[in-house]
């Protein structure tokens, strides 16, 4: 899953769950059935997890474009002069 896919998946998850919760509450209240509310919401949670949890292809439409190795070699990383000291610090 790419970055845009992750954002899409999270937003979809939140919007769908809230929408199902609102629908379930209204249905339960107006049809006077607490059980109906729970069933609609449970169905919503299952559907939402099927859509947003697996790594579906449509979450991978924006792959990261890395530089190819030849281009990377032309711009070498700056070399740290006192590499030993830095290494100790970073641990």
């Amino acid at each position: 899953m790419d970055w845009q896919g992750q954002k899409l998946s999270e937003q979809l998850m939140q919007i769908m769950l809230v929408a199902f919760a609102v629908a379930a509450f209204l249905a339960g209240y107006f049809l006077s059935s607490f059980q109906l509310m729970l069933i609609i919401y449970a169905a919503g949670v299952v559907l939402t997890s099927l859509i947003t949890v697996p790594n579906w292809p449509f979450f991978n439409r924006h792959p990261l474009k890395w530089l190819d190795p030849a281009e990377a070699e032309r711009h070498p990383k700056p070399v740290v002069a006192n590499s030993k000291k830095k290494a100790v610090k970073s641990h």
Partner: protein
Amino acid sequence: MHSFGYRLNALLTFSVTILAIICAFASYSDNLNLPSPSAQIQVLNVNWFQKQPNGDDVVSLTMNISANLESMFTWNTKQDYLKVFVFVAAEYETPLNALNQVSLWDGIIPSKEQAKFWIHTTNKYYFTDQGSNLRGKEFNLTLHWHVMPKTGKMFADKIVMSGYRLPEEYR
């Protein structure tokens, strides 16, 4: 959100939070119900009225209890064995205590269809006073009820019926 486990965890956490919120709303929605309960109790007969050897007064009454609590039932009222609990209490004042409550009868209303009921009964529990204060005593009969919700707040209310009086003499 980069792995299967992360997404599943986020989804479950969020869905349970929302479930708690809709349950809270369901409990709140009970306040939108404006019930109009009614009740009436007739004391048909004082079967006997005695002073026990230990000095306490005991009364046996025959009552006719009728009530309509249908409007107490909402979509958030429990649908299993315990829904609406009702009891009738005799309430009176004595020199020592401003309020004495004695439970005379109780019952469970199992469904909305049975919330309009009528019962002819003697007192199920002893109507007894710790002392001999009951002769000629004026008392109230109060129908109390507790409504058990599926989620949230339990409701309790009562109807007070006054103007009952016990006989002056033991019989």
